[in-house]
């Protein structure tokens, strides 16, 4: 029971304070890939903690021991004791239901999102194959359209798509920067990153943590792709490409629908580039990893500790008999 409370407390604190702190941490913009990892570690930790808390209520702590028979007996005794206690069975049952419902809901939403995205992509690609023109020199598909636009179709059979207007609007270097940005999305598999974040958001739309995580992930993948694109060209080229494309007559109605990160991205590209030091970024990644592993340690620790103290019942237990050969 203590373990369950500990885990629930951990997830409540992390889920409540984590997003406030991460959202304010402006240094994450200097290492967007670390930022993506930090947000994902945070959401995963909360899910794992709550799931383990549910299971910890259902399964009493039993010392881990080398003697399987003794351990099984301990297990049965502990379970009997728990379920004999008033309300014990109800608590255990609700814990189990909570854990399974949580995992099932997230799994379902994630699978549905991946399947739907895959279908939409292949439908889109089928039309693109016939209506688009392949430009082998640029390695992109071109659509006849009078609005400058660029996007990528990620996943299997991935490709970068540009409109004819984008080809005429952008100068060659800017074009390279734009294509490099789209390639970065494909290479860093941002569609999967987004699918996970958005599946959580859809699974539990009321939880602020998941909402914030999804919107921050959408913003950070753009920054990560910008960083990879500017590693080849200069930031100013990409910044001006973004302004040219965004400024070329877009219906104002669609403004509200998107997050509207473009202006922020251009300002970031215009500001002096200060990428986070490698060591600090790795340190941050390790901290995020530790946050992720902690609930597992908390859940397993009592069993391990108990096995240390509780080896007394059968101190002189005979060694397990070696299995007899079958012949």
């Amino acid at each position, binding site marked *: 029971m203590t373990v369950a409370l500990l885990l629930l407390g951990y997830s409540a604190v992390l889920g409540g304070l984590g997003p406030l702190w991460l959202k304010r941490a402006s240094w994450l913009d200097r290492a967007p890939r670390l930022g993506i990892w930090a947000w994902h570690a945070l959401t995963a930790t909360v899910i794992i903690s709550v799931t383990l808390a549910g299971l910890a209520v259902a399964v009493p702590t039993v010392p881990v021991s080398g003697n399987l028979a003794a351990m099984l007996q301990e297990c049965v005794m502990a379970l009997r004791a728990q379920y004999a206690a008033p309300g014990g069975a109800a608590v255990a049952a609700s814990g189990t239901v909570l854990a399974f419902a949580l995992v099932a809901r997230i799994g379902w939403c994630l699978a549905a999102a991946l399947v739907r995205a895959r279908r939409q992509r292949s439908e889109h690609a089928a039309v693109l194959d016939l209506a688009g023109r392949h430009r082998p020199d640029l390695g992109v598909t071109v659509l006849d359209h009078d609005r400058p636009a660029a*996007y990528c179709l990620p996943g299997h059979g991935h490709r970068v798509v540009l409109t004819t207007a984008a080809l005429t609007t952008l100068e060659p270097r800017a074009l390279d920067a734009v294509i490099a940005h789209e390639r970065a999305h494909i290479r860093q598999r941002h569609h999967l990153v987004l699918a996970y974040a958005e599946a959580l958001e859809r699974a539990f739309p009321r939880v602020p943590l998941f909402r914030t995580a999804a919107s921050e992930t959408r913003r950070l993948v753009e920054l990560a792709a910008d960083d990879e694109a500017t590693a080849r060209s200069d930031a100013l080229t990409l*910044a001006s490409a973004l302004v040219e494309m965004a400024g070329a007559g877009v219906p104002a109605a669609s403004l509200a629908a998107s997050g509207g990160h473009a202006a922020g991205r251009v300002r970031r590209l215009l500001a002096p580039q200060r990428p986070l030091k490698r060591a600090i970024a790795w340190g941050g990644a390790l901290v995020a990893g530790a946050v992720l592993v902690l609930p597992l340690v908390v859940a397993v620790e009592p069993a391990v500790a108990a096995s240390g103290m509780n080896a007394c019942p059968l101190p002189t237990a005979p060694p397990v008999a070696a299995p007899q050969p079958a012949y």
Partner: protein
Amino acid sequence: MRGFGELEQAIMDVVWTSGEPVTVRAVLDQLNGDRPQPLAYNTVHTVTEILHRKGWLSRAKDGRAYRYTSTKSREEYAASLIDQVWESGADRTATLVRLFDEMDADEVAELRAALAARADGGR
């Protein structure tokens, strides 16, 4: 199957550029114009019929043969794809990752000025 895809593309190209209803024979002649290995009539006929079944081409009887036209122009298909990308807001980002968001006119003006200042300062 990949080869069929390319042939579908080539046939649609011919139909779109001709601008008027075409027979399979006309498409074949057009395709074989610059091809070292000529395509068979039956191949082109089959793939044209596939395109008709998929809804890309419509056909009308003309004498003993059919004449095919595209149901939509290339630009209309392109527009429908771009619209899909634009619609894919929060809900469909995982499908298509598009490059940029929209900015309002004030922001564009402000950022253009900032860019110009940086470009001048850099020299």
